């Protein structure tokens, strides 16, 4: 009897501990990667300008970090091959020091400290929103220019030294809401991750924009999930019962892949619309027909003629098609180059001041920055047709 009570208590403790820490299960994953990622920063001769970055190279968001790293590496190689960056009367070669943070805040702080110890001139990071947020106060204290290629949480750019290249979460939600209204969908259901800042941020702005546009009756069902969920059938069954013609899933491609496949299994024929985290979803689905016709916001499309050179270089170097994170990484390096040239110095204060004075015609569009650290650029929508990404028009 006593033994059984003890066992029951154990069952409860274990169970509760597990639910409480959601994604603790993957914590053990891949400590091995981080050491190997300390790039040889000092292999180029002469004056070197080092770009430090943290991002996930392992773990469930690894695809983002690797893409940013690859895209940035291509930009750096191009710039160095063309002679480097002229700053005043000096010429600098660029170098990249990319540290793995597994998209975890604590790892990001350690990685950033390592970067600062090894000496960096600008911080290009972080790749994910959570890690970026964890570092903004540190970069402000160290007074170093921080540009996140892909961290989209609104609060990242609050400090004056922080800029971003991608769209913010609220801006994305707003643009997607406008898109839904413009396309004339009769009803839309939302399935968002309520334990993720990015997903929630996009969802809230989406809802707000629908209200502002006087179209709040379009939103017929709202369902949520949490990190590491793999089963969405319950939520999808509810959405199915609501009769929504469109399902909006703000979030990352991993969850999106589960959701579209399970929707197909349940015979749901509603269309899907997603936020920019959907980029890469084709690589995670076993049956591309499950995502056929889905539309998502993305600043970049590899098959776009304006990005042909970059896409070719990327495919040659990495045997993969570049995604928007690769493009963000590539463009951010060019933004840094433009800022260095404009500033005529590599002092952080001058670089930060130069950021609002530059305009870069990148592969994610023409971009300039305002004093709040936000980019000005046009959105693109991408759709999946015949198992391929196409520009939506």
């Amino acid at each position, binding site marked *: 009897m006593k033994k*059984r009570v003890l066992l*029951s208590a154990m069952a409860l403790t274990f169970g509760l501990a597990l639910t409480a820490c959601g994604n603790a299960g993957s914590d053990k994953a891949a400590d091995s990667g981080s050491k190997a990622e300390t790039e040889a920063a000092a292999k180029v001769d002469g004056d070197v300008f080092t770009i430090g970055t943290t991002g996930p190279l392992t773990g469930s968001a690894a695809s983002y970090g690797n893409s940013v790293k690859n895209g940035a590496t291509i930009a750096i190689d191009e710039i160095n091959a063309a002679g480097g960056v002229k700053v005043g009367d000096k010429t600098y070669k660029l170098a990249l020091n990319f540290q793995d943070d597994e998209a975890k805040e604590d790892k990001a702080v350690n990685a950033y400290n390592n970067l600062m110890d090894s000496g960096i001139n600008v911080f290009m990071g972080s790749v994910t929103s959570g890690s970026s947020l964890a570092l903004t106060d540190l970069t402000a204290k160290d007074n170093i220019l921080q540009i996140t290629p892909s961290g989209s949480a609104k609060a990242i750019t609050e400090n004056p030294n922080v800029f971003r290249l991608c769209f913010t979460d609220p801006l994305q939600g707003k643009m997607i809401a406008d898109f839904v209204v413009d396309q004339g969908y009769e009803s839309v259901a939302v399935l968002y991750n309520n334990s993720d800042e990015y997903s929630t941020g996009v969802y809230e702005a989406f809802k707000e924009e629908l209200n502002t546009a006087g179209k709040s009756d379009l939103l017929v069902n709202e369902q949520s999930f949490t990190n590491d969920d793999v089963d969405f059938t319950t*939520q999808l069954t509810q959405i199915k019962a609501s009769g929504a013609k469109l399902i909006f899933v703000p979030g990352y491609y991993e969850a999106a892949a589960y959701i579209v496949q399970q929707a197909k299994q349940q015979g749901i024929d509603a269309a899907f619309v997603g936020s920019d985290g959907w980029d890469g979803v084709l690589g995670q689905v076993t049956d591309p027909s499950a995502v056929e016709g889905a539309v998502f916001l993305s600043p970049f499309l590899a098959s776009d003629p304006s990005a042909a050179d970059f896409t070719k270089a990327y495919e040659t170097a990495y045997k993969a098609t570049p995604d928007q994170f690769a493009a963000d990484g590539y463009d951010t390096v060019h933004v840094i180059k433009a800022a260095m040239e404009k500033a005529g110095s590599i002092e952080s204060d001058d670089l930060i001041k130069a950021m609002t004075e530059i305009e870069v015609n990148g592969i994610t569009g023409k971009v300039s920055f305002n004093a709040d650290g936000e980019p000005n650029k046009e959105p693109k929508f991408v759709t999946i047709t015949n198992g391929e990404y196409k520009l939506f028009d």
Partner: protein
Amino acid sequence: MLINFIEQLINGLRTGSIYALIAIGYTMVYGIAKMINFAHGDIIMVGAYALYFSISVLGLPVPVALLLTVIVCSVLGVLIEKIAYKPLRKAQPLAVLITAIGMSFFLQSSSLLIFGSTPIPFQSVIPNENIKVGPVIISSITLVTLVVTAVAMILLTLFINKTKMGSAMRAVSEDKGAAELMGINVNSTISMTFAIGSALAAVAGILYISQYQSMKPTLGALPGIKAFVAAVLGGIGSIPGAMLGGILLGLIESVSKAYISTELADAIVFGVLIVVLLFRPSGLLGKKKIVKV
């Protein structure tokens, strides 16, 4: 509304039956070896990867791959018992428990080393069709899951109640010492228990991967814990209890997610567990045992 409710019940039955398959493994091992095999959840993961490996890497035909997956898991289960648990049979329960947790980490880390942490998409071995029963749509994978689980449970019940090996298992779980005196080979009975439990976990792994079509080294952790809770809910040591507990857990989870709140679903599941244990400390179908001093 009613159709929606029926569909939610089917969703619950599907997850519940996978929990039940895993819970049986926990409960059988507890019944016989009086230990909680925390590595049991990771056998599901091994099953999923074994299936992936035999189909995508070795290129075996599906029936052979399925069989191989079940064999790999059974052998692994027996090996784990022989190597890690058997030397500790006379040790304190705590030592065995820690070993089991260590074994769980070992399995996860090994698969992390071999396959990496990036999720691997894997096409379901069950063709995806939607079957219409009146207005209710059931996916082929759900149907297969329900049928396979039902068949597995019936076979297991027959095996335990009708065969000689089954009687030996019941005898060992009743009283190890006395069973040994009656000429039952306790070691081989324990091995048999681990083999059957792991084979069921392999089946759960196959069903899991067919449903979710993506695998990572930690995939077994959460279903493992849920199944353990299901085993305790049903009464640990009792096989019908594990089946009942698993299916109840799946149903409660699905219904509370659908009609109450996604965030509260887990809290409700554990709330039910607390209430059940308050009134029936040995679980729903667990036997009350009087321990003599």
